[in-house]
């Protein structure tokens, strides 16, 4: 029975995870490695990669700061409207990304609330890079906060209060006590946030306008290539995103392994220390 279950699980993994991954990499190099690198080196592809990296490099640090601040405020303090704030943080998870994108179009688009004012002042948000960055920030907002919150709540206030009575400033207490205690959860949250920021399709698709070489991110570029029947080139770019996914997994495993190792080292030392 056990073996049967394992076999079912393995088969499921193979069909739904391993095979697609193999197909991505297989198709990417179908026309040889020189074509593969040519597809990646093409100006539009390069622009898409650059834009994706730009969006992620703005969204991830911002959400790191927002996430840590939100988790800290929620975890350490009691205030009116706390549960509302927690719900708000989850909104990007519960709303379809397409709707998130539409919200920005409705706000900043040509017919939108601030659209006319923005055009009058020569600021382009929709169908431009700022819109893509905004959409990415919105969609990836919950990751860091959601990873940190349970950790911070579980740890309580005692250690920070101890730091304060020992003469630490609030900032010192945060840097020397709060942050080191959540560093693995934080690492993982940032990794997840980054993976989503680079892979986001729906919200970005709505606000981007799909202008080649200007407002196409990697996922959008892949879609365009695919629709143009340039399958191999599409898979070549897709393989980069797949690699990112694998790298994310690897870093996650390392982070978890490190955390476990630290615990194990402490546990074994405790046994030795009991004499």
């Amino acid at each position: 029975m056990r073996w049967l279950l394992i076999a079912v699980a393995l088969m499921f993994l193979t069909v739904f995870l391993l095979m697609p991954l193999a197909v991505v990499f297989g198709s990417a190099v179908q026309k040889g490695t020189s074509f593969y690198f040519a597809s990646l080196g093409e100006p539009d592809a390069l622009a898409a990669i650059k834009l994706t990296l730009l969006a992620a490099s703005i969204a991830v640090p911002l959400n790191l700061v927002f996430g840590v601040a939100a988790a800290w405020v929620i975890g350490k303090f009691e205030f009116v409207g706390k549960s509302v704030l927690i719900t708000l943080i989850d909104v990007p998870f519960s709303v379809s990304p397409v709707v998130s994108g539409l919200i920005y179009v409705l706000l900043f688009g040509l017919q939108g609330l601030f659209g006319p004012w923005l055009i009058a002042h020569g600021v382009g948000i929709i169908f431009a890079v700022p819109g893509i960055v905004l959409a990415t920030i919105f969609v990836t907002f919950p990751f860091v906060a959601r990873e940190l919150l349970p950790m911070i709540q579980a740890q309580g206030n005692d250690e920070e209060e101890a730091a304060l009575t020992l003469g630490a400033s609030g900032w010192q207490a945060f840097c020397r006590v709060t942050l080191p205690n959540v560093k693995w959860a934080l690492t993982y949250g940032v990794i997840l946030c980054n993976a989503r920021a680079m892979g986001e399709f729906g919200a970005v698709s709505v606000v981007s306008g799909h202008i080649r070489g200007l407002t196409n991110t990697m996922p959008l570029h892949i879609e365009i290539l695919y629709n143009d029947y340039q399958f191999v080139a599409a898979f070549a770019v897709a393989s980069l995103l797949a690699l990112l996914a694998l790298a994310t997994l690897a870093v996650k495993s390392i982070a978890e392994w490190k955390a476990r190792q630290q615990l194990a080292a402490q546990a074994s030392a405790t046994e030795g220390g009991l004499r």
Partner: protein
Amino acid sequence: MSISVKGIRKCFGKFVALDDVSLEIPAGQLVALLGPSGSGKTTLLRIIAGLEFPDSGTVQFDGRDITDRTARERRVGFVFQHYALFRHMTVFENIAFGLRVRPRQFRPTNKEARRKVNELLKLIQLQNQAQRYPSQLSGGQRQRVALARALAVEPSILLLDEPFGSLDAKVRLELRRWLRELHDKVHVTSVFVTHDQDEALEVSDRVAVMNEGHIEQVGTPDEVYDHPVSPFVYNFLGNVNLFHGRVDNNETYIQESATGHLVFVRPHCLEITRQPRGPNHFRATTKHINSAGPLVKIDAVTEWGSPVHVEMSQERFRALELVRDEVVFISPKEVAIFHDHDAA
């Protein structure tokens, strides 16, 4: 440094944690805040530390009003009930923390810090555990590290929240003697919170007994034990039997039917005899006898059906040759009387 707390009131929502509490703590003393859980003792301690702020009232250190100062500015040492050691730091770094976070111009050099920490490690007898993490230590060791960490910043006041609350009985006894010795050596004004009357009576110079957000009595351990000012203090400090009674010509008589007076008698202040003695006695049946230990503890049931606890010396017990289910006479040797409306 002396501590003076005046008219402190503190509410959490609708719950009144402290109601007009005033307390004077002379410099250099070791004072216990004793009370049941929910009596406000920890809240008072946290207000003295600056971790909690009163709704009204003032806190003074050496006559200076520091009510609005933060915990950081007050420079008190605080030992938390669950130690609150920094779990990602070694014992050494935990103790050194207070030195490392000082502003640059007051920060000791690495060498000085090391000397100071090693001195403290010696004081708490954990020199060999300096590089361990808190999770690798026993409860008693953690508590000593927490104490050393608080002492490292040379606080003018040391505050301890249920310092021995989560330790097992034997370690607790050792540690509280050690704390008393330490206090005699260091002489820093100290306040500790406890719900354990033995601990409060054994360790402290003075005891403040707290109940439901106010202080019932402050005094030396002898004063509060021998001369409790309220039924609550009597009840809380040590075991006690509660009877109804009447007072005639300055003599107290225990009488179940009487109203108006409550009579408190400690178990060792009741005498068991085979024959009725004097005018003040009642009949009881022995139910359970525990003769292990220096005192023999006897549970009996009075003629009107309520339980009564008596303690006597082993000699007296052997002379009496008491057995279970025997009818005896009990008379009080020493009583305390309170009017019924004072009853807590």
